[in-house]
């Protein structure tokens, strides 16, 4: 069964000051599935994810080579506006970074950039996305308060809602639960399982159990290289390489 591939990374390498952080990466990410990028910390997971929406552009010391195809279109070697590429992807980072404005404006920010400025329409959309991130009930009475007044768990859901509001096709999440308490983590995980009907989700984690709970597809990285990629079932039960087996047993960290 050949799934549709939303993202294909081909021969991607990334160097910083002559040091190769990503080495000849080749991966495919299936559509409407959760793909987990797994690996010990420092192996390049975050960097790989950032190159997928060209956030590597803002680090002048990073030199990227290779191709990243999204919907068969190479986003690295293109003259297309980078902001249009980024709008296809919502980003959730390791800790929530709410924009320095109100809860309402955190969601409206992306909507306004996309040209939706009418007040009543904005109100409706803000409510819709806050509901989608299961945050509406908690914040509906305080939309004008600064986003920084929310708890960390709420902030992370706000960041999710903010990302969904630009109507992306892909969600990139970089260890999105690592700063959260168990309950908030669970909420986010549940959300991801709902969202994969409509989105292609790429989730970075170094928590094996989280990967096992969520993954449809696994990419395992080690020291800047992709060691193995396979459907979750196969990856966890029939790992092909010695390194993967060692990692799954917990002897590599």
């Amino acid at each position: 069964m050949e799934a549709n591939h939303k993202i294909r990374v081909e021969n991607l390498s990334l160097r910083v000051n002559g040091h190769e952080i990503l080495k000849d990466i080749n991966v495919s990410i299936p559509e409407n599935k959760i793909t987990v990028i797994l690996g010990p910390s420092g192996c390049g997971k975050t960097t790989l994810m950032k190159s997928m929406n060209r956030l590597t552009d803002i680090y002048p010391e990073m030199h990227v080579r290779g191709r990243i195809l999204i919907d068969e279109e190479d986003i690295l070697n293109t003259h297309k506006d980078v902001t249009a590429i980024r709008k296809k992807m919502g980003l959730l980072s390791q800790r929530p970074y709410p924009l320095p404005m109100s809860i309402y404006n955190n969601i409206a920010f992306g909507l306004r950039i996309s040209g939706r400025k009418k007040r009543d329409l904005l109100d409706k959309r803000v409510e819709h996305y806050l509901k989608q991130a299961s945050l509406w009930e908690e914040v509906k009475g305080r939309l004008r308060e600064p986003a920084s007044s929310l708890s960390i768990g709420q902030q992370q859901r706000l960041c999710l809602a903010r990302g969904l509001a630009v109507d992306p096709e892909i969600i990139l999440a970089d260890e999105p639960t690592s700063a959260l308490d168990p309950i908030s983590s669970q909420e986010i995980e549940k959300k991801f399982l709902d969202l994969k009907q409509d989105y292609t989700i790429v989730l970075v984690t170094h928590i094996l159990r989280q990967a096992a709970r969520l993954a449809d597809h696994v990419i395992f990285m080690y020291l800047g290289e992709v060691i193995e990629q396979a459907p979750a079932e196969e990856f966890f039960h029939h790992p092909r390489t010695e390194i993967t087996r060692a990692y799954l047993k917990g002897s590599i960290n």
Partner: protein
Amino acid sequence: MSLWLILMLAMPVLIGGGLLWKSWSLLHDHALGELLLSTRWRPLSGEFGFAPFILSSLWVTLVSLLIAGPVCVLSAIHLTQYAPRIVLKVMQPVTDILAGIPSVIYGVWGIVAIVPLVSRNLAPLMGAETTGYSILSGAIVLAVMIIPFVLNILIEIFRSIPIELQEASLSLGASRWYTIKYVTLRKALPGIVSALGLGLSRAFGETIAVLMVVGNVTIIPRGVFQPGYPLPALIANNYGEMLSIPMYDSALMFGALILFVIVMVFNLAARLTIIRYEKVSQ
């Protein structure tokens, strides 16, 4: 050690108290409102109106801030967001050196370069006539003096903003400039305000460099091309002379007290903003 610390902590109180004590005889004789608001400065006939000096100080300081503020904010944005890291590394020692130049040298530079520039180029451009010894010359010299100081603080402020915040904005489809305008600058705003506040309190007290180019004429300035007579210049020029005039000594001390209070207020306000901002952003 702790004795020194206590002494240092007590210093502002001691200085403030000392100045108050020294200006007491003037305050005893004249109403505070009259001293602050009157424009008549005739020490020989016992009239001490400080308005010309206070207003000159405010003019010079505010104009210098109008010049230095935008320069500093834009440079800090360029240096931290756009320029290669190496430029920032080179700039830092340069600003340190600039900040360390004795102010009398800035004063000489003001007389040689800025005063003629104002009288020959800037004033005719605006249809004004001036010797060049003016509020504007003082403000330009002051601006150049506080730019390195304010710029250094602003660079620190911009660098302390996490890059992930920018990444968040960019990933929502915002352009680089839109991100800087609506996210980075907004996050930095309280910091910018307090950096300018610290610059302001420094500019307000600066003496020699301003005194050399501002004209030192006791009038209420009605424009930037007119001369002025800021408070620090009044004290520096006259202290130790004409002390035989009754209450003159006390009047100069009162001038110093005004200066002291205003600078303390600016400083405290700026620091309080920083503290509150750090609490909020955590």
